[in-house]
């Protein structure tokens, strides 16, 4: 073992002692048990990104672990019955609530909740004979309640995928029918297709130059800004919701989005001028035409999708 590894092991052991001292109920866990889990978590969230992380960062990280939740989980993993009772008593409502949110009906929710408890306990056994439950993946970095909700959500998605595969053949037939209907309808003269500006929009928008410039501009944004663009435009979240994911307030998200839009405009314009030889006035005119044409196009589009209640940029 290298000197660095020894030093980290020391820090982890001290951190484990502190964690046990911090916990309201340490559940008679040994320092070694806690240290083992803490070390694994440290590797995952700190040392993987920065193998030479300073001592202070390591200490702060360990201090940020949820001591009570982690002790409870470790005790459950160790097969302590009282710990299991506590876990079920404290979190059965959370699991049920998350299962209800992820299920279409009460029976499915109940089934999902039962599956979660089974997954937590672990139906299979590891090499050392201990149950291979999902609890082994809880790091203590977030709350146990939140982690359980995440477990329920993941399990629900998995179950949904399995069911989707089973009924795929039937659905394919249904999709084919729908596709035929859409095809038939598309030949009808609708108000959207009749409007000349919309055709113009499509043409303008289809031009690879503007599209490529915009794609490149988005890719050049910082990760946080790109995530905001994804959440707001692609996932159709409100600014408040996007802000919650990013950990910022709605107003901050709004300011950030405004800045991103301004940045994107500048980058796209520069790209059109520098890469494709557009003049300044051509770029300006293209933006104006696109805005004019897209506005009418999107009104129809958004109206048809019933999401047009809010004005642009202020969702």
């Amino acid at each position: 073992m290298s000197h660095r590894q020894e030093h980290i092991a020391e820090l982890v052991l001290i951190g484990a002692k502190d964690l046990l001292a911090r916990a309201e109920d340490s559940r008679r866990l040994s320092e070694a048990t806690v240290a083992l889990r803490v070390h694994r978590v440290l590797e995952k969230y700190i040392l993987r990104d920065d193998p030479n992380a300073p001592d202070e960062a390591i200490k702060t990280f360990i201090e940020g672990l949820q001591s009570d939740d982690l002790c409870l989980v470790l005790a459950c993993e160790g097969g302590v019955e009282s710990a299991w009772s506590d876990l079920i008593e404290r979190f059965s409502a959370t699991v049920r609530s998350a299962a209800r949110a992820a299920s279409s009906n009460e029976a499915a929710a109940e089934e999902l909740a039962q599956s979660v408890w089974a997954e937590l306990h672990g139906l299979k056994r590891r090499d050392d004979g201990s149950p291979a439950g999902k609890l082994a993946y809880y790091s203590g970095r977030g709350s146990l309640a939140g982690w359980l909700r995440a477990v329920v959500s993941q399990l629900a998605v998995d179950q949904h995928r399995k069911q989707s595969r089973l009924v795929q053949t039937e659905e394919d037939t249904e999709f084919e029918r729908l596709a035929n209907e859409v095809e038939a309808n598309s030949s009808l003269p609708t108000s959207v297709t009749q409007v000349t500006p919309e055709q113009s929009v499509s043409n303008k928008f289809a031009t690879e130059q503007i599209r490529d410039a915009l794609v490149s501009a988005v890719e050049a944004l910082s990760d946080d800004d790109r995530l905001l663009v994804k959440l707001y435009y692609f996932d159709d979240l409100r600014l408040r919701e996007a802000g919650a994911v990013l950990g910022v307030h709605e107003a901050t998200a709004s300011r950030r989005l405004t800045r991103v839009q301004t940045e994107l405009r500048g980058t796209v314009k520069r790209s059109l001028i520098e890469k494709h030889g557009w003049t300044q006035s051509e770029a300006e005119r293209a933006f104006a035409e696109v805005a004019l044409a897209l506005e009418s196009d999107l009104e129809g589009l958004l109206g048809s999708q019933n999401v047009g209640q809010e004005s642009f940029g202020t969702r």
Partner: protein
Amino acid sequence: MKETNKNEIDLLLRKLAKSGGAESFGEAQVSQHLDADELNAYAEDALPSAARSRYTKHLIECSSCRGMVTRLALSTGRGLADAPTQLQHRTLRDVLRSLFSAGVIRYAGPVLATLLVLVIGIVVLRLQQRESDYTAKRQAPESLTATPQQGDSASNELENQQEELRATSPPQQTKRLQQEENSQRAADKNEQSSLADTAPTGSTVTIPKEQPESGADVAQPTFAPDPKPAAVTPPPPAPTSEGQGVRSQTVEEGQAAARDRDDFRKRDGVVTGAEQNRPAKRSERQLPLAGRMARAPAKNETAEKEKKQTYSSGEVRVVAGRQFRREGSDWVDTDYTEGRAAVLVRRGSEQYRALVADEPAIKQIAEELNGTVIALWKGRVYKLQ
């Protein structure tokens, strides 16, 4: 123009998103997803910055994990309640940064300096004006009624005369003193009735010394003399044995007069006895600025007392160890301070179910208290509707 600029990009991005441009924007089929712990730690913003950045990259590409993180973040209400503090912090930082930027210092510096000079000038002018008004007010009654010092000297003369009289003929002197006392009472009455704002007279030197007892009240003019200087007329007790009872009475009166005189002097001779009886507001207005400022905390205390009384008279309930007071149709945690950001949770919503699942006490609060409830729980404020 700026708004239009934003809208153009806004519209372009919307169009791309709707036309299935996800792949163009880095949306890819990822084989490995974040595990539950990573998703939850991201949603709860409990990750170190480097790890968070790594997972942000994944979330940009993976709509499935992004959706899950979104659901987790929204189910806990995280970021919605804590954010205002962050916002204030950031705003303050931004404001400070922008205040001390080179551009601001170059252009706004001189403007601020000019404004500062103007403000200081206005304040100084107002203070001087107030000072001069105050001096004028102070001098006006003095010139009209004789200054307190003049009053004192006149009363000293009177005291000497009374001393002489007391020494020579106590019964007569007693009678005179009683007459003076009566005239003084009459003067007070008239002062109270007429307030004598316009013409405070030199009462000290024009006190009628010879006046019939019966006509004392009637004989006083409506612009009655200022009672305060008149009150100084009782002489100090003479060291004679005769007229002991009268002397003891005059001693008390003298002490009372001295107290009045002290009060009079304390108020710089501006507030007369009649004015003391006027509504407190007026006398307060006439106090110097410092005096008014000194009285301000007392006022606040009174308001606080009234508020407390109102509060104690309101309906208060204790649920789940928290105390709530009724405010209209709402219940507000007594520890809640106005302006704190609250997480809005509607009863029956998914967020509500998730919350009460974690915090059964909130369920108890929501069920026992009707209407909107603002509850403080574990450092967070929840607005239950």
